[in-house]
């Protein structure tokens, strides 16, 4: 007997998208986002024969709540693909193999594209707007709108491509966006970042160009020192220690 996968109703799709926004709600060091994957997929699993009380539904929920880890936005690919696989009664061993194999690519591709590319780029854009004298509402609006156009589109696309292609979704991750996007975004971020940092320092301090250059030169020396530590020192922690000492000294000096 063959089972045809039903189309994903709009309401179910929207429910899954809404739940995907909380996919890390039960993030923990044991199962990572595994429970979140099952939670996000659950509306689709209700379409299994027998509905919420069926054996197939319970077996699928048990499988899908096990360990899983991926970038939270691209995890939507896995949620769509696995939901389709469950509804198509794929072999549980094949589903398990997919779950194991998908973690690495969905994590590393998402990390490079979003955390190392898109987010810093949007931050620099906001810092540049701030440095150029944009109003606070413009700075915040520019950052949030730009970032979330990419963010929400990616989640919606990821769920869709996962559902359409099922366990063969790996090819989608070989598309130009994922192959060239991280490098393009890093280069774009480097240009905007180089432009934004001096301008933002001028905007925050109100100092004249010479003052900004002085702050930049000493700051650059600090950056070199951080790089020389080879990752052993986290900059924000070192800054916290130095600034605390500075604050104590500023009130203790006669």
């Amino acid at each position: 007997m063959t089972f045809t996968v039903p189309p994903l109703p709009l309401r179910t799709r929207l429910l899954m998208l809404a739940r995907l926004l909380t996919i890390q709600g039960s993030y923990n060091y044991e199962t990572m986002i595994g429970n979140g994957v099952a939670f996000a997929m659950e509306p689709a699993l209700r379409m299994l024969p027998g509905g919420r009380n069926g054996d197939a539904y319970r077996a699928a929920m048990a499988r899908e709540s096990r360990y899983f880890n991926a970038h939270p936005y691209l995890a939507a690919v896995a949620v769509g693909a696995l939901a389709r696989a469950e509804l198509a009664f794929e072999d549980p061993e094949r589903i398990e193999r997919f779950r194991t194999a998908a973690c690495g690519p969905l994590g590393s591709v998402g990390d490079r594209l979003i955390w190392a590319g898109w987010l810093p780029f949007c931050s620099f854009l906001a810092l540049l707007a701030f440095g150029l004298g944009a109003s606070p509402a413009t700075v915040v609006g520019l950052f949030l709108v730009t970032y979330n156009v990419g963010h929400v589109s990616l989640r919606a696309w990821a769920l869709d491509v996962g559902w359409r292609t099922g366990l063969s979704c790996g090819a989608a991750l070989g598309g130009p966006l994922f192959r060239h996007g991280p490098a393009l975004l890093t280069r774009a971020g480097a240009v905007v970042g180089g432009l934004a940092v001096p301008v933002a320092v001028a905007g925050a301090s109100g100092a004249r160009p010479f003052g900004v250059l002085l702050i930049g030169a000493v700051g650059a020396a600090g950056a070199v020192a951080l790089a020389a530590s080879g990752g052993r020192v986290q900059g924000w922690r070192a800054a916290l220690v130095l600034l605390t000492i500075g604050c104590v000294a500023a009130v203790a000096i006669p």
Partner: protein
Amino acid sequence: MGYGEVLLLVVIGTLCSLDTVSVGQTMISRPIVSATLAGTVLGSAEAGVVAGAVMELFALETMPFGASRYPEWGSAGVTAGAAYVLGGADTAGALPLAVTCGLAVAGLGSASMVWHRRAIGRLAGALREPLATGSAVAVARLHVSGIAADLWRGMAVTAIGVGLAIVATRVVLPAWRVPFGPSMAWALIAAVAVGAFAVARSARSVPQARWYLAAGLMAGLLLLGRR
């Protein structure tokens, strides 16, 4: 500052904390947003965005990669924004003090996220049997409990942060002895050091990106010279 404003700051900080991991990740948790919101609540969005921009340079260093341990910038931004506005943007020491309070709360937030994840892990262990049998109720319970616990965590961290901002600005700033200019320069130098390190590290990871960085920097300096 009245109780209503304190309450509003805690609500905003809680929502920003939740956004860090559990709900949305729409980046309202980034300090450039959360500090500006805190400044707006206290009547000075202009001062809030200054604190937010400086904190954002620190935040560029640590991105939320997987299970790595990273600071929680939502409540930290609210703390820094509140401290800067309460201290007075024209007051000597207000910016370094605000940044120090913000970074301290970022560290507290980081530790609290680890405790939170361990607590969810323990609850997952307690629910192992119903989860293994495919109980949707257990899945939902674990998920909602995780989000609820994160909400309480964010609320507690923000409340501590806002309290720290109030006390620090009242106790430290009246005794501050260093003039305005050098005080502001400390905080900015620290922020530039961390931000520049983050930009350079990112540019080193991709071929030719360092040239793009150099071009951007040149353009930035030219822009600075023309202002």
